[in-house]
């Protein structure tokens, strides 16, 4: 399998220890890659670089061999994205927004969009700014998956979703995995990471501290996570 996502010695320093430092990892094509870390560890900074919103100060960031900043448009044509902080135009209904996004993506058919809406029981008629957190999240999920992307970047995709919907989301990820979609999944819900991810990277203070192969050993992710989390606490003491 070839590499779908590749970061090499990526540094983006925001000062005060914020940012990412000399970050290197690869995600293979068709892999579901977990990306964990405490708040402020640099997960979103990594994602912004993958999305081409910001440029690394040094190092390179590539998806399918294309530079994430310079060739962002080519990458994004076949990439799905769900932001950690969802922002939608206030005046639009769910359906108007999804149609708008589908048109911008150049989608000819709305079949997949309708199917996903049904699957997550999304009622897209109301104005987005009046929707609950969970409903907004569903709009975001449909938006990220509706154009059958080759790579998908998800930043806390299930926040606000109820357990039933979370379960459906896990199923969706597993289906996409079967299709060969490459997925980078940032999440604090360790259970869903364990259920879906082939490998999981743990980030702390902008540095990669571990990449674990979860399918090999059925180890407790929570323990692992806390282990790295607490280490940081001890250092502070």
């Amino acid at each position, binding site marked *: 399998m070839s590499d779908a996502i590749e970061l090499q010695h990526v540094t983006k320093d925001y000062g005060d220890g914020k940012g990412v430092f000399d970050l290197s990892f690869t995600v293979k094509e068709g892999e579901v890659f977990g990306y964990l870390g405490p708040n402020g560890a640099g997960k979103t900074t990594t994602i912004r670089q993958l999305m081409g*919103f910001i440029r690394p100060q040094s190092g390179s960031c590539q998806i399918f061999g294309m530079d994430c900043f310079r060739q962002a448009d080519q990458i994004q044509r076949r990439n799905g994205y769900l932001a950690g902080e969802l*922002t939608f135009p206030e005046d639009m209904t769910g359906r108007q927004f999804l149609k708008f996004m589908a048109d911008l993506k150049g989608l000819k058919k709305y079949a997949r969009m309708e199917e996903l809406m049904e699957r997550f029981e999304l009622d897209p008629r109301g104005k987005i700014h009046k929707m609950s957190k969970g409903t907004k999240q569903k709009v975001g999920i449909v938006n990220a998956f509706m154009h059958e992307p080759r790579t998908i970047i998800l930043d806390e995709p299930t926040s606000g979703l109820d357990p039933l919907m979370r379960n459906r989301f896990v199923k969706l990820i597993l289906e996409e995995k079967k299709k060969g979609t490459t997925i980078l999944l940032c999440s604090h819900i360790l259970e869903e990471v364990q259920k879906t991810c082939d490998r999981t990277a743990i980030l702390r203070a902008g540095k990669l501290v571990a990449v674990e192969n979860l399918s090999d050993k059925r180890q407790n992710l929570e323990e692992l996570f806390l282990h790295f989390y607490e280490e940081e606490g001890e250092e502070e003491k």
Partner: protein
Amino acid sequence: MISITLLKRDIKTCIKPFLLVFAVICMYTVIIVYMYDPDFAEMLEEYQQKMPEVMAAMGMTGIASSLIEWMQIYLYGFIMMLFPLIFIIVMVQKLVMGYIDSGSMANLLATGNSRGEIICTQAFSAVLWMVLLMGAVTVAGIFSGMWLFPGELNVERYLILNISTLFLQLVVAGISFLCACVCSEARHYYTVGAGLPLLFFLMQMISNMGEKLENLKYFTIYTLLPADKIAAGKGCMIQNLVLLFLAMVLFGSGIWWFQRRDLGI
């Protein structure tokens, strides 16, 4: 280089402020044309004598010998400068700054449209709206002139005046646009993108009041619209070229900067 889908969306987001500003300018235009009447003219000239500073600040000085000069004195010093400026500030906020400030620019960029396409579409929208606004105002002015004082309005000069005004407003829009492309937060945009044109406008008003402060006119872009000379039939090709050049540089810099900047979205 332009996304039609986004352009359609731009029409929806800007139509309300457009109609509002157009209605206000239209109303003033009709009222001022209507007042081109010996009785009212005397009244306004009286104002000029009683409070010369205030009237001068708004560019309302001089005695009109024709309808076009009348309109220039009472519309193009204040109303045709301030209301388009308000529209520009709101429009650029909706077209560019709002997307960056709220983070919903991420939605647009995650669709496979390049930054160049997105920002060029927004620049095109901004220019289009300004052309539409000035075009609609021109039509309204010509009609009210024909309706109230048939044969009085020098249409050719009125057109030239409005074309020059359009060029000036494009420079103002360019300033706001460039600021929106550079800023990350709406408050910075309002400070510079709206503050700078307002400052130019105030300088113009103060310099109109004459005396020593008149030299301020060398520091404001509004000097590049010699409305009184245009109304008197004098050419202003050089000013027009300078305005067009400035507008292109401002919009071009905004587009260039937006494509290479970091976006915290």
